[in-house]
């Protein structure tokens, strides 16, 4: 399933957040959106996922979602959004309960995603017992359980420490190489963008506009930290963003 964002603009009251964004999100690839803080990248993601209405413009999806897809547009949130009163298994089953699945089908789906995210031993654990990295693994498992057409990831690694982030990036790459999924990945971290993005969209500071779209052809599994090609991409992206990031930092927060 492909997504098209066509001339989306948005304002909160008098503050213009996004201006005329048009984007193609091709299936089977990871698209990263980077930009200085407050440039509206998370807002754009929520619009792509139907959690927010743009002031003007539309987001279209074309083609049918894959077989067995329960929730075509599925989010992974920065703060994990796990229900503290449900176990790991219960949190995953939450996403399945509103669908007509038999008990056995649900159990099979849950076991499958727990295995894929290496969480099988933690099936019965409470979220409070898990580290940040484990919590995000649970959230990723929950997203995988509904077999999404597009994963919408809103700074999924930003609440984690650098080492955990590195490990989870490897896990995401493994998951993707085993079964390529479509993803829109919002981040402010350029290292994540160049490691995971097939295509990187750079937004300007508020009002967010597309400044540049960078394609990285290197296959995900061949990328590693410190690779000269990736470092060059990263340096170039940082040059594009640097002044804007500094200026954005000085702005007052609106809402």
């Amino acid at each position, binding site marked *: 399933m492909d997504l098209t964002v066509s001339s989306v603009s948005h304002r909160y009251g008098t503050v213009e957040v996004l201006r005329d964004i048009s984007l193609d999100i091709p299936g089977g690839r990871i698209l990263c959106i980077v930009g200085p803080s407050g440039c509206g990248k998370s807002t754009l993601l929520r619009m792509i996922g139907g959690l927010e209405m743009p002031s003007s413009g539309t987001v279209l999806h074309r083609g049918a979602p894959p077989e067995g897809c329960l929730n075509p547009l*599925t*989010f992974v949130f920065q703060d994990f*959004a796990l229900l503290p009163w449900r176990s790991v298994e219960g949190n995953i089953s*939450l996403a399945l309960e*509103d669908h007509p699945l038999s008990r056995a089908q649900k159990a099979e789906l849950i076991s499958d995603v727990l295995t894929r995210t290496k969480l099988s031993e933690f099936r019965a654990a409470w979220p409070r017992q898990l580290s940040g990295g484990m919590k995000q693994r649970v959230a990723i498992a929950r997203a995988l359980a509904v077999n999404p057409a597009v994963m919408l990831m809103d700074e999924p690694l930003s609440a984690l420490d650098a080492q955990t982030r590195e490990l989870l990036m490897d896990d995401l790459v493994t998951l993707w190489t085993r079964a390529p999924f479509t993803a829109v990945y919002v981040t402010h971290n350029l290292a994540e963008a160049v490691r995971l993005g097939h295509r990187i969209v750079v937004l300007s500071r508020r009002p967010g506009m597309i400044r540049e779209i960078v394609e990285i052809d290197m296959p995900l599994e061949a990328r590693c930290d410190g690779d000269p090609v990736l470092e060059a991409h990263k340096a170039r992206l940082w040059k594009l963003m640097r002044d804007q990031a500094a200026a954005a930092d000085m702005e007052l927060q609106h809402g």
Partner: protein
Amino acid sequence: MADAGRPVPFRGGGFRPGRVRGVGLAVFVLLIALAEWGTRTGWISSLTLPRPSDVGATLLNLAHSGMLWTHLAPSLSRLVVGAALGISAGIGVGVLIGLFSLIRAGLIPLIAALFPIPKIALLPLFVIWFGIDEGSKYALIALGTFTPTVVATYGAVDNVDRTLIRMGQSFGLSWASIVRKIVMPGALPGILSGLRVSLAIGIILLVAAEMLGAEYGIGSYILQAGSLYDLERLFAGVVILSALGVATSSAIGWAERRLLDWRS
């Protein structure tokens, strides 16, 4: 020059209330012992305070004669029925206020107007509306527990983490599922702590409810003793009410440990 160094002074203590067993009981025992000693030595006159041992004897008598149960049974049934009506209506209305802007705008001022009314003042009116029998007593206790439950419930619903609700929507959960699986469990801690207040108010109103048209009941027992200035019986009744308060409070504590075991 040879400075051996001094240890850094520790200043991180306190502000961490823990669970200390037996102290609550010790405070009770100490106060009762003090009253017993005071009344025996004549330091406290028998008009000021009855002797605790006499109150105990009165209680034992009451229990032996079977009158304790005769008084307790109607009071308990009034409390249970009245509080069940008030609390279930309160939770229902509170959740509606928490979920719908229109209901919130319409009802919050009404609740604010109802809350400070001393419900006892309405008892004569309730007697006319609901009859002098059990009806008016249920109504008084129900109204008294209703308002604090509403306020606690909508506060608790307001405090449910919005990102969890967004998450539910992002997975395409139905409205009913979001309310049942996300809003209600998230509001439960706040609702339960509101129930402590509501039930205490219910016990207070029990005595008021039995002021009119009650032959038996802890409240009427206390009121009779009060009008005769029979301090032993008055205090015996008060002890029963206190015990009721401790019992409801520990019942809620038990419910919290059972239902909120995910918290710690």
